């Protein structure tokens, strides 16, 4: 069991207390390709933040690789994030004043890898994602799809066990969305990386093997979706959006 959540609760105390997660129980095996679906405000992003150790939770238990993740120091949390988890965000979250290759290198910089190794590795990933020609470009010179591929390269470069993707296609058109999903699928199959995608689009969820529905802070149904026809998209062709 790679990820195990037991009765996780989370309340935000910004002015009015907001009970976002109300006892979440969830387990995800190594190598799974999972999506978490829910309407906005259902707590799916909060859940993802907790899974990614970006945020802490109030009660319950979260085991990652069998280790309890609770009350970690900032340093330890940073180490976990750097070594075991890769992040992909809706708004790409690339650093604007760094070139594509510098963005990809950054996690290794914080890991203390030397420059030469970092550079070579980053070039390797750029090549795998077909972005070799864009190595020296800044994010604002690239298209959304290219930016997201840079972000994926950045997530992959540390050889994470888990990739957490928060609405990875939210800012992309349907064609590039499909490409990105195909890419994630490939990573899942070829490198056996556990991928967790948070989305509110059923089309995106349909590409994954397992769909976890979350509603009002609790896990609803969990669908096995190996045939990828769970929720057909609008339109006759069945392409996203």
């Amino acid at each position, binding site marked *: 069991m790679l990820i195990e959540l037991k009765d996780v609760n989370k309340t935000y105390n910004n002015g009015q207390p907001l009970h976002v997660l109300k006892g979440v129980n969830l387990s995800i095996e190594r190598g799974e390709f999972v999506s978490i679906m829910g309407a906005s405000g259902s707590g799916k*992003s909060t859940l993802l*933040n907790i899974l*990614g150790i*970006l*945020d802490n939770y109030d009660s319950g238990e979260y085991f990652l690789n069998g280790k309890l993740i609770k009350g970690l120091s*900032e*340093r330890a949390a*940073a*180490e976990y*994030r*750097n*070594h075991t988890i890769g*992040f992909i*965000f809706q*708004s790409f*979250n*690339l*650093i*604007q*004043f*760094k070139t594509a290759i510098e963005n990809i290198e*950054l*996690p290794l*910089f*914080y*890991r*203390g890898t030397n*420059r030469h190794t970092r550079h070579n590795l980053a070039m390797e990933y750029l090549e795998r994602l077909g972005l070799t020609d864009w190595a020296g470009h800044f994010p604002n010179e690239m298209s959304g799809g290219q930016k997201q591929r840079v972000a994926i390269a*950045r997530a992959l470069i*540390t050889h994470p066990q888990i990739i957490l993707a*928060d609405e990875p296609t939210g800012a992309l058109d349907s064609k590039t969305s499909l490409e990105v999903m195909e890419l994630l699928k490939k990573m899942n199959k070829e490198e056996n990386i556990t991928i967790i995608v948070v989305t509110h689009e059923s089309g995106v969820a349909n590409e994954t093997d397992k769909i976890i529905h979350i509603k009002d802070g609790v896990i609803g149904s969990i669908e096995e979706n190996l045939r990828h026809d769970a929720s057909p998209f609008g339109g006759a062709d069945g392409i996203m959006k």
Partner: protein
Amino acid sequence: MRFDTDRFREIGNTLTRNKSRSFLTGFGIFWGIFMLLALIGAGQGLKDLLGKNFEGFASNAGLIIPRPTSKPYKGFKRDREWSMTTEDISILKNSIPEIDVATPLNSKWGKTIIRDKYKIEASVKGLRPDYAMIESPHMKYGRYLNEMDILQYKKVCVLGKKIYKTLFPEGGDPCGSFVRFDGLYYEIVGVDYSSGNMSVNGRADMAVSIPLSLFRKTYNSGNKVDIICITAKSGIRVSEILDKAKKVLARKHYFDPGDSNACMVLNTESFFMIVNSLFKGVNILVFLVGLGTLFAGAIGVSNIMMVTVKERTVEIGIRRAIGATPKMILSQIVSESIVLTMIAGAIGIVFSVAILAMAELAATTDGMLTAHFQIGFWTAIVAVLILTALGVLAGMAPAARAMKIKPVDAMRDE
């Protein structure tokens, strides 16, 4: 914490991203360090310039000048004139062991010194060689008076700077030439370039010094002494010696020891003390103003860094999300602050050194530096240390804020 090219590239990146802001922020520091160093240099230069007035003069010297009495004493009427003799010098030296040097000075005013077609009014001083202990000569050419001159009644003289300049407009070494006054020819043996404004019976640059023995013969002054100049042994206050000397002289010459007018004493020590306390005040002012400006600059840096951190919330959040520890973020912000402060400060140091060098150039006359404006090497080193400390301090508050940024804040802050 690693210090490699990567780190400096990171710092360079962020600082050059918003050039005008970095520039304006740095300007505060630049101005602060410039003000501090320029003021220190200026204060020092002023002190030197003022010190010029006392140049060459022993800081522990005292002068004793006889005046008419103002009180009747032991049957003598008031307003009685009295004068000192060579004998008094040996009495003073014997009865007051704290005296280091005691030397007589006789002088005549308004003598016309002539060389060929050139002439100038000057005072003539009859001196012994040990007068150099009171007012040290600054010999440009030749030598000062010596014991031989005294013993052999040599007709030699040492010219003051102004006299030399007037009588020898063409310049060059005048030693061996002659000047004439009061019908006698004197061979020039030296030129004294000391230019202090404090002097006994005429400024040094407007005086001709001749051997005391010759002076007495020429002007028939017998063993009379106009002024006795003394210096105190080290660690002893001149004023104490002068008080004692007054008493000794009062007993010898029969005037009331309580008669404050009968014997005038001058004490260079008190002049030096006034100047020193004045410049202590000036220095305190310089440090207050300079350091104040510097601190204002540092607070400016801190302020701007604060805004920058706020602006960079997302970026810092991203960095945190992909594995930067708070310590790494802290060290980045603090290093940025240090680098900005150091660069601006270094420019400030260079600039103030350049300005002070120009001031020194302006203060140089006749190829001789009259005042030192330039700050010392160690002053600059201390300035650099202060800058580093300020850089760290200025970076602290913004860095603390940056450390509080959680990765999720970045996500929310889109």
